[in-house]
Each structure stands twice: as C-alpha cells, then as structure tokens.
C-alpha cells in the first residue's frame, strides 16, 4: 500500500515491452475499481487511486475491499478527474514544472464552464488539492472582468437584492472604485 505512491506508474508498460530481470519493479500493478453514483464502473491503477485522499483513507480503514463506492460523484467529472491525476503522476515521476504548468493550463481551458463547476465538488470530495487549486484559479479567471449580469447567468444565480440594497452597495463601491489598474 505504502509503496504504491513511490513506485513509478510506467513500470508495467516498460515491463510489458521489455521484460527486465529486476523483479522488484516488475510486479503487476493492482487495479482498483471506483463506482460512481450513476453506477458506472471505473478501473484505475492503484497509484492513480491513491492520489485521491478519500479513497486512500477508505483503503486504510478497510484494506480488503476492491470496489470503492463514490456516492457523491457522477461519471463524467470523475472520468475527467482521473484523466488529470494520471498526468500528474507522470509529472511526479518525471518533474518538469514548465510542462506541468502547460498541461494544467490546457486541461482547464478546453473544459466547458459546466465541466469546471462539476469537477470542483468531486475534487473537493476526493481531496485532490492540486486539482482543486487549478480549478479554483480557472473559475476565478472566468469571473474576472465580467459584468454582473453575465456572472449571474453564468452560474444560474438569481438577483436577491432589492433596488435599495443594490443602490447602497453601489455607494459603498464609490470608495473602492478604481479608474486605473495597478501595474
């Protein structure tokens, strides 16, 4: 269990291609089954599953099980989260900050707004801090420099201010108004 995070993920692939005499790295990777709330089954390598702190602690509590039910998680965001974690493990084995940054940026830019919002509770529930940071930044970037109306419809939020309250808020903002961006 504990060795799983340290051992490089690519070992299985390399052993399949060219069988190495080194027996320590040649052990077959254990697969773990994740079950989403809509009863989809995901088989992932153990090292990937251990990126999810929630799954990891589940295993630590009951090591005999091999299917982890994830009642709060639907299939689509889960598949995207798994995709992200697979890449992260590659970067862990082979650190390249610039490449990682590039991948993270691409990962969020190609996602729709809904995908991002859907993934946040999943990343939070599974306690994947790296992904959560990336997602938070992506959502923040999409809120920045947008009008009030745009943001409301973006997130499906209803205006619950009275006209007076809104006017009062705007008066408060007079103290914070900035004509020019800081450099």
């Amino acid at each position, binding site marked *: 269990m504990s060795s799983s995070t340290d051992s490089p993920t690519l070992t299985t692939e390399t052993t399949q291609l060219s069988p190495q005499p080194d027996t320590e790295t040649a052990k077959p990777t254990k697969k773990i089954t994740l079950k989403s709330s809509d009863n989809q089954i995901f088989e992932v390598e153990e090292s990937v599953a251990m990126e999810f702190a929630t799954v990891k602690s589940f295993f630590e509590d009951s090591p005999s099980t091999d299917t982890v039910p994830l009642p709060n998680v639907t299939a689509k965001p889960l598949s995207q989260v798994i995709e992200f974690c697979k890449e992260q493990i590659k970067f862990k084995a082979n650190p390249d900050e610039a490449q990682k940054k590039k991948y993270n940026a691409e990962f969020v830019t190609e996602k729709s707004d*809904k995908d991002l919002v*859907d993934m946040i*509770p999943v990343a939070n529930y599974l306690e994947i801090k790296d992904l959560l940071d990336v997602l938070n930044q992506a959502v923040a970037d999409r809120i*920045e420099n947008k009008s009030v109306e745009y943001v409301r419809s973006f997130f499906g*939020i209803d205006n619950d201010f009275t006209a007076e309250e809104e006017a009062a*808020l705007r008066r408060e903002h007079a103290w914070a108004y900035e004509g020019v961006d800081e450099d």
Partner: protein
Amino acid sequence: MAADHEQVEEIMARSCNSNVHFHDIPDAILSSIFSLITDTRSRNAMSLVCLKWHLIERSTRTFLSLRGNIRDLFLLPTCFRAVTNLDLSLVSPWGSPILDSSPNTALLAQALHWTFPSVVTLTVYARNPSILKFLAPQWPHLRQVKLVRWHQRSSTTLGFDFLALFEHCHSLASLDLSHFYNWTEDLPPALEAYPSVAASLSHLNILNYTSAQGFKSHELLAITSACPNLREFLATCIFDHRYFGSVGDETLLSLATNCPRLSLLHLVDSSSMSAARGNPDNDGYTTGDARIRQNMLIEMFSALPLLEELVLDVCHNVRDTWVALEMLNSKCPRLKSLKLGQFHGVCKGIDARPDGIALCSRLESLSIKNCADLTDSGLISISLGCPRLTKFEVQGCKKITKLGMTKVASILRKTLTEVKISCCKHLNTVTSLQALEPIQDSLQRLHIDCVWEMVEQSGSEASSSAKSAGLKCSEKRRGIWEETNLNKKYKKYNGNGDGYASSTWEKLQCLSLWIEAGELLNPLALAGLDDCPVLEEIQIKVEGDCRHQSSPSPPDDFGLSSLRCYPRLSKMELDCQTAIGYALTAPSGHGDLSPWERFYLNGIGKIEPHRAQLLASTGHRC
C-alpha cells in the same frame, strides 16, 4: 455586446440541465476562488451578484485603495473589514493631509481603525509628521508601510517624519520611501534611534523618484549597519567621485558586509533617475571614471552569497569589468537577474568563447545599459553562455547591430519572451523588429524606440525618396503622413509586395514605445508591427523639446488612431511628462488645450474608447 448576449443565452441553456449548482460548492472553496480575484472592478461586480456572493466577496476583499473626499471620511462604509492592505494615498483632494481637515483628528483616526481593523500593509500620503502620529498607534501590527509625498518637506528636525511610525510599529518589515520626498539625512538618525525596528526591517526602498538627491556614502553605511537583516535594499546614490560622499568600491564592500543576507540589491546613480534617453551619437564613455576597482567588486560579490537580483547603474565608467563578472557566477550562485549601467568590457566576445558576463549561465534576466564596447560577437557569446535568459535588454549600446540582435533572438528562441532595445545607434525601429523575427511568435513584451529613418528611406519607392535635413518640422511631419498614406495605398495594390515581413506577433501583449516629440506614430504598423492579435497594453513615452519645433497645425495628428489595428488593445499610457515646453504653445484664448495637446490626443476616440482605459499624463513641465 451582442456576442456577449449570445454567450449568456448559451450558458443559460447549459446550466439548466446542470446537476451541480455553483452554490452547492462549499463556502470554503467559494472563498478561496474569490480570494484569487484581485481586480477591483471585478470584485465590485461580484458583490452585486447576490447576497451570498456579497458576503463572500466582502470577507475575502483584502486590498482596498480608498477613493473619495477626505471631508466625507466620517461616512466611510464599515463593510470592508477584511482589508489587510489599505491605500490611503489617493483620497481627494490629492495631496492634502487626510486628517487635518477634521476637527476631531484623533476620532477620525480611530474610525479608520474600526473600519479597517486588520490592516498590516498601509500606503499613506504623509504630508506632515502628524498624520503618522495619529495613524501609527491605530495599527501597531503594521508590517509593510509605503509613504507618499511629492510636496516639500516640512521644516522639522531630521528624521521626525518617521519617529511616530517606528515608535508604534515594532514589527515593521518593509518600508518603501520611493515616492516620499525627504532629505537623505532624514532616515539614518531615525533608524539609529529605534534599533529594534531597524533590525526587523527586511525590505527597504529608498530609490527615490521625488528628488534628485542621492544618498551619500556615509548615509548608506549608517542605514545598512542599522538594518543588518535587510533582504532587499534599493537606493539612489552618488557614484560621481567629484561630489562629496560619493560611493566608491570601499563603500560597496562595507555595505555588503553590513547586510550579508541581501537577495536583492539596487544601487542607482541619482543622475539615472530622470530616465531621459541618452544621446545615441556620443561614444558611450563618460568623462569621469567611477572609483570602482575590479578586485573590490569581486570581494563585494563574495560578501553577498544569497544575491538573486543585482542592479548597479553607475553612470560613470567602470572599465574592463569582465574580470569581476566572471567571478559573479561562482560567488553569487543564486543570481538570476542582473542590470549593469556604464559597465564597459562586460564581455570581450573573442572567438565566441564565453567570457565575462557570458559565464553567468544561470541568468534569467539581463539588462546592459550604456556599455560602450559591447559588440555583436559579445552579444553572441552572451546568448550562448546564458541559455536561460527570458528577458534581455540593451540600452545605449552603440556598437551592436541588427546582425548581433538577430543572433541573440535565434539562439535564445526557446526562452526569450521580453526584449528591450533602446537608444542603440545602429538599431532603429525597422532593424530592431527585423532582428527580432526569430522570436516573433513567442515574444510577449517589447520595448523599442520609434526612429523612423528607415521607414522613410526604404518604405516607399513610390513617393519621393529622401527628406532633406533642412525641411521645417511641420513640413516633415506632413511629409511622413502623406508618405504613410501613400504606402497604405501602395500596399493595397501590391498585396504584400511592400518589402516588410508582415507575419504575426502572436503572443505580444505589452508594447512600450519611445518617441521623440513632434514625431508621428503612424509608421508603426508599416515598420512591421501591424499584426498583433493579443496586444493589450501600449505605453508611449514622448520625449524632447517642443519649443524647438514649429507649432503643429490642425490636420496634423500624432496618429493615435493608427492603433486601431490592434483588436485587443485595452490599456494605453501616453506619457508626455518628459516632453518639455508644450504648454507654452497654447495660443491666447485657447488655453484649455494647447495645439500640442490636440496634436497628441487627436484620434483617440477612434480606438474604441469604451474598452480602452486611458492613462494620459500630459506634461506640466514648461
């Protein structure tokens, strides 16, 4: 706007069948998303979305630059309680002491404390010492303070401006006096009077933009020996040995020994602070040499093993510096950023064998200013020797040419994203841009000078070729204007047969330009900068003496409208502060806007004003 609405509808349609609502996300996560947004306008908009957003926004707003009239300060809203970084330097009327206007000064200071209880970073216009006397006790836990004052110093005893601050704020870590007018004699006694505060300072900025005075040698030593724990130190000083208190190599060495933990050191000669462009035609050597010997420089470098960023802008010759610079790499292993002014012989560049500065292989940013003997082969050795450079600046280097810069650009193609070429005799606008062709698709920030000579000469075979030097300025301006118009037509007929590479500057976001007073901006696109799809920001600095030019007549204009060709342009700064004398040209009865102001601002309406934020600082130096 129409596109916005379409997008909105599309999003609405999508969010209908969403099974996760944004508000299902836990508040802790929403807070951390909100705290990533710093832009004030976005924040104001966010707090108007709904009640929940309003609460989260207010609890995560940590920066506030307070606006409003000082007479209304008692009306301050108490909603910004989470603010830790408060800027009080911009309340209007600008420059007035913020507390003196009220009869109950102490009460108002307390009100500020109640309104912003958690401030640790404060910027304040401290016109007189009494402001800090009232404010400093309110926030005893202040860690970063920036004082602002352009106004004359009040006639108090030396260092009195700082006493209240040092007395009440014992955990002060950072003090920024770069925009605070004071005498160089003020700071040392104040620091000496409060040794514990001085010892806790890790950042001190006395790189003063408000006065022409530089710190004298003994003052620098007094300051640095009072603050032995400085990590970052920026100061203006006097390197000219003809002046009393000039900084020589012994001072540099003692300074380094006083503050051995420095990771950032900027020492800039006071004459460099005016930031005027040098004369590109002189030979690049000043009349006097600075008193800085190579062996002492090496000793200084060895005393600063943690150095990451170094600026030595000396303004007087430091010769044959390659000996010392070769040691820099081993003495300061963390050094990433280096700027040298008036250092000669930084790199001999013989046989393309790396020497001098080219041995500093870890540098990520390098700026070479007024190096009289830097050659093209020197440039090549530097770009071979420093493969990590992302930022490269050359300024006032008379011997380098297009060939050298092209080599730099192609060797450092993979890393370079920011380039400045300024005041180099052999590199005008067109040749600079041509030299940068290898990094055209990766460059993000660029500074060039607008020197059009080549555009005029080779730009148009169609129009009459050369302009004789004797032409009157306004005629010359007209001439260029017509010429560029002609060129545009010419271009239309000939497709791309205009002789200039017109490929795209794909990632260029920020463009900074220097232009001489009276010159036009129009040829910019023609010079090769016509296709910049993501260009967001332009800074234009106009320099020169308008009094020597004939007054511009109405059809003339600077050419701001030509910036229309940049579709994403949203921010422009037009800086005419260093253009001398054009307020004097206002004709009687037209005192509101002088012909020169008309000249510069004409056409500004054409660059989509609803998107453009404009920061025009038109000069008031006459």
